[in-house]
């Protein structure tokens, strides 16, 4: 069994060697998971906002449902998407199975509930805080929504990062709908699973370290954007 120092060294070697295959896999991981995060935000943020401020019958049940869907197992999402996108399935004619698009769809389904549930929590608290102000300004529902989304933007970025983290780390869904095809649908997590099954545990772990660095990089980038934005708004 290799020590962790050796694994770290292997990870750095891999990165520094400028391996084309690795770059391809890293780029696809980012492309798929960032796309899924953006789409999940397009779906989840409005849904979360509506659940936060609208009052309608069945709202509590809807909130419980969305919260429960945060626990969707990736492999179940993968199967669900596979059954739809398979040539034998209802959407088979689109020919999307084993493409990055299929992987984006699966990850979007996986993390949209996370974005919706967490943003609902954030926006509901914010709404409770500002309810008086909004009433005194006589804002319409739509204006309230926009104001809440804007005021909660920093917390919502963290929500989006939670979704991204889940997407970039999952293997169950992308393995089934992507197929882990070399040069086509292989991402970091499926590559790690493959190297583990080849018994190349040190290489698998090194890829895991690179994936963690990737997540760190994305989070750092978003955080520095946020710091810049804060400074800018106070200037």
């Amino acid at each position, binding site marked *: 069994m290799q020590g962790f120092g050796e694994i770290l060294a292997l990870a750095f070697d891999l990165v520094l060697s400028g391996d084309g295959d690795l770059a391809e896999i890293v780029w696809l991981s980012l492309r798929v998971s960032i796309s899924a995060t953006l789409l999940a935000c397009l779906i989840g943020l*409005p849904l979360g906002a509506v659940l936060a401020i609208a009052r309608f019958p069945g709202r509590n049940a809807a909130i419980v449902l969305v919260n429960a869907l945060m626990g969707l197992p990736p492999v179940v999402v993968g199967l669900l998407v596979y059954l739809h996108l398979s*040539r034998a399935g209802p959407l088979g004619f689109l020919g999307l199975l*084993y493409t990055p698009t299929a992987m984006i769809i699966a990850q979007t389904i996986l993390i949209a509930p996370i974005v919706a549930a967490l943003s609902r929590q954030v926006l509901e608290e914010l709404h409770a805080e500002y309810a008086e102000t909004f009433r005194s300004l006589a804002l319409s529902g*739509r204006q309230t929504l926009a104001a809440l*989304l804007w005021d909660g933007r920093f917390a919502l970025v963290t929500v989006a990062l939670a979704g991204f983290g889940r997407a970039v780390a999952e293997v169950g869904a992308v393995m089934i709908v992507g197929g*882990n095809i070399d040069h*086509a649908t292989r991402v970091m997590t499926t590559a790690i699973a493959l190297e583990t*099954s080849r018994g190349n545990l040190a290489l698998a772990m090194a890829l895991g370290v690179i994936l963690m660095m990737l997540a760190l990089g994305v989070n750092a980038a978003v955080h520095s954007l946020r710091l810049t934005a804060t400074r800018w708004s106070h200037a």
Partner: protein
Amino acid sequence: MTPRALCNTPTLFAFTAAFAFWAGPSFAAEPILVQSTTSTANSGLYDHLLPQFQEATGLEVRVVAVGTGQAIKNAANCDGDVLLVHAKAAEEAFVASGGGVSRTDLMFNDFVLVGPASDPAGIAGGEDVLAALARIAESGSPFVSRGDDSGTHKKERALWEDAGATPGDEAGAWYREAGSGMGATLNVAVGMDAYTLTDRASWISFGNKAAHRIVVEGDERLFNQYGVILGNPEACPSVNAEGGQAFIDWLLSENGQEAIASFTVAGQQLFFPNAPGHD
């Protein structure tokens, strides 16, 4: 940006355009999709074959590596052009059901029984796999099964039956189903000092052998035949029959068979071509 602005047509158009760009280019020639057993992919055989095929024909091959059982099911769902697996009876049943055009022998290797150096069942060095399995059952030595309906799993179940020692439910203590691919199962076997059945290619190219080694090999019952099948375009109109047939023709040709024979890992040949007419 207000929520309303998010929904107007130019914005949606911009999102769609950006998404289409981001989601990547489409390919000119339709790639050939192969549903494959894992041993051929995990051992690196495709990394060796596909560049040669691509050079010869300019066609791109994409491989989805799953267990033989799942590969056949995926192909039955029309999610593949070519099937490359190793469970002759299941392959013939698949062709008979109209899922595939015809089945051809492609290459072979053999299965081996691997186990811990301590060899609790005392079977190391033997050649009779049935006697070895009977000894494992008798001594209750840990054995890890694929348990995933793969070609190797089917083989293993057949061997237990022939040995007259089919593990039942009461065998749970020593007979454990990993429910995973070959590599994951080997990792489990190494982790719990257990015996397991594996194809030789997966074993030789496996990087986490620890103190495990081959304990039984050479029994003719351990023969492992790989076959190749073209998906049936009549049952599955989406099948890339032209590309799939080109790939199969190349695999069965002199060049393809030589390419298979020239693939080695650690100096050992992993697959032995035996297409009809190339003995």
